[in-house]
Structure formats: structure tokens, C-alpha cells
């Protein structure tokens, strides 16, 4: 209590001395006033001041950052990843015709973070109401890991080789020369966007707009270099892979704007071009169950790359006011996704390639998905206080990619099998079609208090999937009230019920393999997944969603808010798979401005997301007894809880010459897993040293920023900034996992991020009009 009184007292003092009008002076002002005749001198002075304020302010800022330590995670997206000094450079230069002239020209050049790898430049100019043109340049760095350890040479290229003295083995612990072979690598990439465009106002209320953007993405990412097929006969190494991608986008639209109706026609083209060659690597392993040619030293593997693709879309959108406060609007967009990149061969291994008797059925995919998106809406407020909305949405992805038989070679490790093998696969080009109908009505039952009800119906059709069709009904009710300027209240509830058509667990399996292979499987075992598995995204579901908020303004300068949301999903007809998920979130918000020159705010958000899923562990060589054994079931309960606190203020002193702002954020999360297994899965004699429970995965992020700006005169200002950020993550997925921790996967030793960094910034700002 004493602390509260002290804070309020301090705020009172600050306001009293910072504002010429004093604490809560605004409350005492009377809105009515008498116009007084101004002297000619005062009028001239006012006119001069108005003229000055009508001229856009340009400014240039130059200075430096100092960062106390290297950290990839801290520098992610900002470019402040290195210890030391960086140039601070920002600018905003602009001119426009005097507001009260007949001219409309303008131009503007903006630059941000010019000394960093997150720099951007934006130039725009033209004649308002006739022609605008712009150019954009932007870089965005992504820093993933700075301590990646790998024995491979040639990172960033298309061929990864092992050191000459490499000693191979069937397990990572057999790599006797690993430690001396490890080299540190950095995993990062950079996006660079260059673009431009124009808009032109044409007669008859037409507007033509066109833009072009080209984004290049270069760097490295981590990928898995796998030899062998899935299960016990595969080995993998986590390695760097080159990124060299190029995406070009053209967007053209022609808009027609009338008083009652609007129409817009558009064309969009997005072309993705992957310049990176498929990654080839030398196999670090030897393994008796592979073809000998796959072993070290001659064995190699090759990955595919993301294929070039192109997307064209033409669209039309329109809206028309029918009268009686009723508007009809809709749009249609037809698109074509094409992909026809040449296939790489089944294998890079020449010995295994020699075993191929069923060659590739085609040289490229000739893949095509035709997309159709269509919407129609009617929104009406026919009488005061009543509204009505009806809409229809149609989203169709019609996959016209041809289907073929591919007898693949698993992980460049074995000879090609026959058509009756599990490796004889037919591709499944998934179609997806959504139809959504929605009705909603709201009625003002009291002064600015609306009660609304609604109904949504969504129907999804899928091909090659376990469920051909799902239908979901959603009933909604809401209350929204703003009875006066002091209170705003919202409350909404929804209940959704999703029904799936017959679940055919074996259907995708049948569609993806050959009849010859199916004949080799006993009838009781004709499935791929556990027969009781139900995939959550296409399964029966009961969803309850409640959300609400209340904002109160007891006095003009104080605002208090509370918001919450809860989403509860039950997959009632699921025995194996995701059974239940729940999300709960609530937030307290407050802002207080004891005077015009001091604004404070604070918030606290709690989020809790939890899931419960059930599995059934069974082996392929003992399928039916395994399925029948209830003791082989397991349940995983995952709980993610996150608290986020924020507190900040901004303050203006010395009649506006000194501004100060500060903010602090603290976010902590805890991920817990509860795991239960049936009696058949519990080892009768526990292995000494085996963990019996999951540790919590936690993260703590603390950030504090403060900035002050002192205006020396009308042109010069000095700005001082300071930021501190500390992140501490404990995640059992990464911590204590060295390159040889996993027997079959040569990993990189990447650990959870952790840093505590300080930044100081000093700059001078020069302003001019």
C-alpha cells in the first residue's frame, strides 16, 4: 500500500512539473469558450506557425549501437548478432506540394536500420490522385544456430564429403575419428526483397495498380542426410544444406469504384525458382543390411530439393449497395499451381541404379492443382438496431497431377524391388473442397447493446483420405454492449459439432500401393496404421469456445481490461490418436495517464494449452497379438503453460523537449509431459540410469528497453537507448544431446538458446522541413 501511495505521489509530482496545466487539468477544462478577436500580429504569427506545421518533417538519424556479446538467437531478424559496434542509420526524407495549393506532387524516401542486416529502403512519389510509383528494398536475416558441429566438408555446396581419415561404423559411437573431424558451422540465411510498382488513376473511376517483387533467399539450413529405409535399417546425419531460392511475384489489379458498387479485377503470378542443386553426401556409416555399395567409402546419398513452381491466379471481386443498408459482395479467384521440375533418378548410387528394372514412369511430375475460391455475402442493416449477414464460401483445390507407379529405392541403400514390394508406391494427389455457409443476425436489445445469434455449416470433401467428407455445424451466440463511454463488454460462445463420414483407415494405403503388394499381406493385417487410429483433423469433434472481454474506464485517464478465451475440443469417437485438447487464455490490461505527459501501461497474460493422446505400441512381426494386448497402450498428456508480464511508460518533460520511454517484458513457459504406459510396455527390470519422468521444458525471456530523446533546438536531437534481453531455455530435446548421443543419428550438438545481451545506442537526429 505504501508503495502504491509512493508511486501515485511520484506521478503527481511528475505531472505537476512536466505539464504547464498541472495534474488533471484537462478534467477541469470547459468545452465551451468564446472566440476572441485576434490582433493582426497574432494572426500573422498563427499563420506562419500553421504554414510551418503543414510542411512535412524530414529527418536523418546517425549513430551507433554497441552489443556486449555474440548471440545468434538475440540477433535473429535484427542483425545485431555480433559483439561490438554497428552503425545506426535511419532516415525519412519527404516533400509534398503545399497543402493549400493546386499541386499534388509528393515524394518520400525512408530508410531503416541502414547499418544492419535488417536494413530497408522505401521510395515513393507521384502526383496524388493521378499517379504513384514506389520502389522497395529490404533485407531480413535469419540466424538459426551458431554452434553446429559436423564432420562434413563442403557445407553450403551441393556435395558434402568426409575427411580422408574417416573411420566408419554402424553406430555413431563407432566413429573413432569424429571428434578430431568436427568443424563448427553457422546456420543462417538472408532474405532480400527488391520490388516496385505503380498505381494510376484513370477516367471513369478506374484505378490500375501493378507491382513486382523479387525475393532471394540465400544461406544454409539443417537437413537430414538419411541412408537406408525407415525403421531399424536406416542411419542419418544432420548436415547443412544450401539455400538458394528466388521468388518473383507480379500483382496487377484494375479497380472500378462507384458510389454504390465497386469491382476489382486482378492477376497474380508467383514464380518460385530453386537454384540449389540436389544435395549429395558421402555415407558415414556401414551397415550389414544394406547393399555393400551403399556403405562407406563409396556409398552416397542424394536428397531432392524443393521444386520450381509457379502459381497464376485471376480474380474478380465486387460489391454493390442494394439500398436499405444492404450490400452484396463477392469474389471469385481461379488459380493454377504448376510444377514440372525434372525428377532426379531413383538413386545416386551407380550400382543400385544398375539394378533398376522399372524405370521412372515419367521424367517430371507435370503436377497441377487448379484452385477455385468463391465467396458471396449479403450484409444488411434493414432497420436501426437489426443486422443480418449471410455468406457462402467455396474453396476447391482440384489436384490434376497424374498418378503413376514408382518402385523407389529406399535411401540409396538397396536394389530395386518388384511390383509386389512395399516399395511399389502410387502417388496420391490430394483434392480438397470446402463449402461453408453462414448466417448471423444481431439485434440491439438495449442502448448500444446487441444480442446476436449465428449458425455456420462447413462441409469438406477430401480424396485419398481416410474420411471422404466431414460436416460441421456451429451455433453461436454473442452479447456486445457499450452502454456508455466508460464500459465496453463482449461475450461470445460457440458450440461446434463435426461429423465425419465412415473412417476408412486402410483407404489411403490401398490407394498408394499395388494390388500385387496387397496380395502378399494377410487379410487381417491389411492396414498401415493401427485400425483404431483416428486423425484429428478429419475426425468427429465437439468444440466449445467461449471468449469475452470487458473494458472499464472509471475515470477518463484510467482504463482497465480483462479478456479471456477458452477452446475445448473433444474427439469423442477416437480411441487412438488425439483425444482432447484445451486452450485457456486470459489477460489483464491497464493503462493510466495521470497527465498528458505521462502514460503508463501494464498487462499480464496467462495461456494454457493441453492435449491428451493415446497410442498403441505394436510390432510389424507380431501384429495381431500386439494389437490385442491392451497392456501395450500408452497415454501422453502435454501441458504448455505460459505467463507473460509487461509494464511500460512514456514521459514528456521540459515542455516537450525531453521524451523518455521504457518497457519491460517477462515471459516464462513450462512444458510438461505426463506419460503412462500399459503393463506390457513397462520393463520388468528397469535399466539403471534410465530417466523415469520427463523434466519440464522451460523458457524464461526477460527484456527491458529504455530510450530518451532530448531536443536541443528545432533541428537537432540526441537519442540514447538501452536494451537488455535475457533468454534461458531448457529443452530436453536438445540439451545433453551431443553428436554421438543417438546411435543412429549423427547430430550437431545444437543446444537450447541462452543469452543475456545488452545494447546501448547513441544517435543524433537532424530534422528539417
Amino acid at each position: 500500500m505504501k508503495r502504491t501511495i509512493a508511486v501515485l505521489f511520484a506521478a503527481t509530482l511528475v505531472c505537476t512539473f512536466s505539464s504547464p496545466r498541472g495534474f488533471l487539468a484537462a478534467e477541469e477544462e470547459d468545452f465551451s469558450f468564446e472566440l476572441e478577436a485576434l490582433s493582426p500580429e497574432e494572426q500573422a504569427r498563427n499563420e506562419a506557425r500553421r504554414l510551418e506545421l503543414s510542411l512535412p518533417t524530414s529527418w536523418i538519424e546517425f549513430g551507433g549501437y554497441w552489443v556486449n556479446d555474440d548471440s545468434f538467437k538475440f540477433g535473429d531478424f535484427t542483425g545485431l548478432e555480433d559483439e561490438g559496434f554497428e552503425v545506426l542509420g535511419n532516415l525519412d526524407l519527404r516533400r509534398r506540394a503545399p497543402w493549400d495549393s493546386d499541386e499534388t506532387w509528393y515524394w518520400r524516401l525512408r530508410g531503416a536500420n541502414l547499418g544492419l542486416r535488417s536494413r530497408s529502403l522505401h521510395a515513393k512519389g507521384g502526383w496524388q490522385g493521378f499517379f504513384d510509383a514506389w520502389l522497395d528494398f529490404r533485407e531480413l536475416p535469419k540466424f538459426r544456430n551458431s554452434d553446429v558441429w559436423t564432420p562434413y566438408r563442403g557445407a553450403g555446396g551441393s556435395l558434402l564429403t568426409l575427411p580422408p581419415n574417416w573411420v566408419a561404423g554402424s553406430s555413431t559411437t563407432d566413429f573413432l575419428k569424429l571428434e578430431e573431424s568436427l568443424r563448427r558451422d553457422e546456420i543462417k540465411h538472408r532474405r532480400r526483397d527488391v520490388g516496385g510498382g505503380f498505381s494510376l488513376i484513370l477516367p471513369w473511376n478506374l484505378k490500375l495498380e501493378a507491382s513486382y517483387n523479387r525475393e532471394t533467399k540465400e544461406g544454409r539450413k539443417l537437413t537430414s542426410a538419411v541412408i537406408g529405409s525407415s525403421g531399424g535399417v536406416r542411419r542419418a546425419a544432420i548436415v547443412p544444406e544450401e539455400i538458394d531460392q528466388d521468388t518473383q511475384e507480379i500483382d496487377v489489379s484494375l479497380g472500378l469504384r462507384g458510389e454504390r458498387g465497386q469491382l476489382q479485377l486482378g492477376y497474380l503470378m508467383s514464380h518460385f525458382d530453386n537454384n540449389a542443386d540436389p544435395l549429395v553426401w558421402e555415407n558415414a556409416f556401414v551397415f550389414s543390411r544394406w547393399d555393400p555399395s551403399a556403405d562407406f567409402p563409396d556409398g552416397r546419398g542424394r536428397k531432392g530439393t524443393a521444386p520450381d513452381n509457379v502459381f497464376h491466379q485471376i480474380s474478380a471481386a465486387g460489391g454493390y449497395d442494394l439500398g436499405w443498408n444492404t450490400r452484396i459482395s463477392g469474389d471469385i479467384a481461379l488459380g493454377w499451381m504448376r510444377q514440372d521440375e525434372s525428377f532426379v533418378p531413383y538413386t545416386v548410387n551407380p550400382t543400385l541404379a544398375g539394378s533398376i528394372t522399372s524405370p521412372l514412369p515419367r521424367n517430371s511430375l507435370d503436377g497441377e492443382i487448379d484452385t477455385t475460391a468463391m465467396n458471396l455475402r449479403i450484409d444488411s442493416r434493414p432497420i436501426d438496431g437489426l443486422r443480418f449477414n449471410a455468406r457462402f464460401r467455396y474453396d476447391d483445390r482440384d489436384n490434376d497431377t497424374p498418378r503413376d507407379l514408382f518402385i523407389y529405392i529406399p535411401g540409396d541403400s538397396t536394389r530395386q524391388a518388384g511390383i509386389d514390394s512395399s516399395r511399389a508406391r502410387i502417388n496420391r494427389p490430394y483434392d480438397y473442397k470446402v463449402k461453408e455457409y453462414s448466417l448471423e443476425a444481431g439485434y440491439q436489445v438495449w442502448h448500444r447493446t446487441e444480442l446476436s445469434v449465428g449458425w455456420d455449416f462447413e462441409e469438406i470433401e477430401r480424396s485419398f483420405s481416410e474420411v471422404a467428407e466431414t460436416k460441421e455445424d456451429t451455433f453461436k451466440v454473442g452479447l456486445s454492449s457499450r452502454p456508455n463511454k466508460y464500459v465496453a463488454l463482449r461475450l461470445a460462445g460457440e458450440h461446434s459439432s463435426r461429423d465425419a463420414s465412415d473412417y476408412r483407415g486402410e483407404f489411403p494405403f490401398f490407394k498408394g500401393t499395388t494390388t500385387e503388394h496387397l496380395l502378399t499381406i494377410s487379410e487381417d493385417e491389411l492396414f498401415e496404421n493401427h485400425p483404431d487410429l483416428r486423425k484429428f483433423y478429419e475426425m468427429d469433434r465437439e468444440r466449445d469456445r467461449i471468449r469475452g472481454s470487458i473494458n472499464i474506464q472509471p475515470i477518463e485517464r484510467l482504463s482497465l481490461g480483462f479478456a479471456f478465451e477458452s477452446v475445448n475440443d473433444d474427439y469423442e469417437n477416437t480411441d487412438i490418436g488425439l483425444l482432447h485438447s484445451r486452450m485457456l487464455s486470459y489477460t489483464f490490461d491497464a493503462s493510466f495517464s495521470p497527465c498528458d505527459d505521462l502514460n503508463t501501461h501494464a498487462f499480464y497474460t496467462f495461456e494454457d494449452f493441453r492435449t491428451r493422446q493415446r497410442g498403441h505400441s505394436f510390432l510389424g512381426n507380431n501384429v495381431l497379438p500386439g494389437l490385442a494386448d491392451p497392456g501395450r497402450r500408452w497415454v501422453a498428456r502435454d501441458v504448455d503453460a505460459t505467463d507473460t508480464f509487461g509494464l511500460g511508460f512514456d514521459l514528456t518533460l521540459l515542455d516537450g523537449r525531453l521524451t523518455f520511454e521504457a518497457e519491460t517484458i517477462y515471459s516464462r513457459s513450462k512444458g510438461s509431459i505426463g506419460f503412462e504406459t500399459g503393463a506390457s510396455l513397462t520393463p520388468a527390470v528397469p535399466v539403471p540410469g534410465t530417466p523415469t519422468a520427463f523434466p519440464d521444458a522451460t523458457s524464461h525471456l526477460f527484456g527491458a528497453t529504455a530510450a530518451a530523446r532530448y531536443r536541443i533546438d528545432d533541428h537537432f536531437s540526441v537519442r540514447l537507448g538501452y536494451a537488455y534481453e535475457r533468454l534461458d531455455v531448457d529443452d530436453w530435446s536438445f540439451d545433453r544431446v551431443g553428436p554421438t548421443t543417438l546411435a543412429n543419428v549423427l547430430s550437431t550438438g545444437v543446444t537450447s538458446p541462452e543469452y543475456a545481451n545488452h545494447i546501448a545506442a547513441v544517435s543524433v537526429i537532424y530534422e528539417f522541413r
Partner: protein
Amino acid sequence: MRKPCSARIFGRLLGCSIMAGALVWLPAEVALAESEREILAESPAPEEGYAEGGVEACLECHDETDDSPVLGILQTPHATKGDRRSPFGSELGCQSCHGASGEHARKVEGDAARPSVAIHFVPETKAAVQNVPCLGCHQGGDQMHWKGSTHDTNEVACASCHQVHAAEDPMLEHADLRPEIWNRAQADTCFGCHPQQRAQLHRVSAHPLKEGQMRCSDCHNAHGSTGPSLLTRSNVNETCYQCHAEKRGPFLWEHAPAREDCSNCHEPHGSNHPSLLSNRGPYLCQQCHMAPFHPSTAYSAGGLPGPNPADQMLTRHCLNCHTEVHGSNHPSGPRFTR
């Protein structure tokens, strides 16, 4: 399955015909209607309640000393007199938006309270009333689907987010280039009503909104859209492909939930798990994969570093081998290992 060529062509032609028909359908008045703005551009009629004197008359009283300073508008497109489409391009000036406010401008006698302007952009005024002047000019393009949109039906006024009198509207494109390195002017406005998303962006894995390198409007059109959740494109995936075009395909080997909806596995606003995953591996994958051997294995704490660490639980979990989960175009990649 490839459909008969004639059916595909018919479908496409039908779509194109609808678009062409839309052009014809829109009444000629749309294209030829005399702009209301042009009508309003005539001299204001005092008998209709408008004040005379234009912008200058308002500026006699309203300037930078107001509780809400107004002169910043003179630096903005709204105040460009030379553009007849702009509010100041008409003789009405401020009344283009604030409505006929002759009573407000008239001299007040004695202690009588000064009447307010016709449209006052404050919370006490209904959002639908506040938005009328804005929609008079901004009802095409990105604002085409405002009426009936989530924000419209929830009584959000344009002025709740936009600052028309300020020299810089924080919501506008590139307004984020203020001289602060972690600038998120637009996002801070959105967080006023969407606090959960504000908290999520401080998670370990998040899109770069916190760093000011992305804006909410990169994915959402707050003015209304035809996609779900006010997305800028028709569906979730098309929105994601704007920056992740390499995942668009189509691929030879498709991963069904990825083709359908990226949010089946990802939480776009921020996650405690790497790569914005909505749940931890391998359990996320096991919600849909329960085949014999390792896909159905009970990955208990016994798989942590110790005597028997599990390949599928640590580092990239299932992605230690199945690295191409978004789809593979390698003929030997049906299991997404190539």
C-alpha cells in the same frame, strides 16, 4: 485423378465467364455515376447546416494546442487541396468527414455550451456513424469487404485504429520505419483487442513481429476479407505461400495435412516449440501416425539421454529422418526422407 480435358476447360471457362459477366452486370451507374465527392465539392450551402469558410475557419480554433492536435493532417494526403478526391479538395474541408457543423462554428452566446460537430470521432459515437465518411471514399480495394466483416459487426470504428489528424498514421504501410529498432506500431494497435497474440509473439519461436519486421497486415486484412480469420488470401496455405513459396508444390509425394492446412501442425502467432509447431515431437506426429514399429512406440522418459536415448525423441525428433514433411519431389521420397 486427372479429369477429362473438356470438363476442366468447361470449369475454367465458366469461371472466366462469371468474371466477365461481373463487368457487364455491374450497372452502368457504377462506372458513370457522378462522384458524390464532385457534388460535395460545390460551395457549401449554409442552409443545409454547413459552416462557411472552409478549412481555414476550423483552423482558427483548432491547432496543435488542442487536446487532440490537428495540424498534422496538413502533411497528409487527406489535406491535399489539389486532389479533388481528398476531403480538403472540397470547399467543405473538415466537414467532408465531420459533417455539416454550422452550429458548431457559430458564435456561442453567454455560458451556453458549444454544440459538437455533426460527426465526432469518439467512443460515444456509434462506429457505424463514424465510418460513414470514411467509407464514402474507402470502399473499394482492400476495404471492399468491410461491411459485415468481423470488425464492422464488432463496432470497430476506423478511427479506433487510424489516426487521421496525425502526420503519421501508425497503421499504414511502412509507418513501422520509425527510428526504433524494435518497432511494432501497427501490431501494438492490434494487440489492444488481441492480447493473446501479443503474448504469443514473445515465445521462443515466433514470426518477426516483435522485431518490427512483419506486420499483422502481412497476413490479415483488418478491413474484411473473404478468407478465414480475415486472411489476405483465400485460405491459410495461400497466405503462408506468400513467404514460403517453396512449400507450394504440388509435390510428387504430398503430406495430406500439410496440403490441406498449415495450421494443422503450426501455430502462426508463436509457439514454445521449434518451427512454430503446435505440439512437441514426436507426439505431434503420433497424433496421425500409429504404424507398427517406431511410429507407434511409446516414447517415454526412458528415451531421454541415458542408456537408451531414442532417435525419434531428440533434436529434430521424427524429422531426424523424415525431413521433407511438407512434401517431396524425389521419386524415392514417399516416406519424406528424400
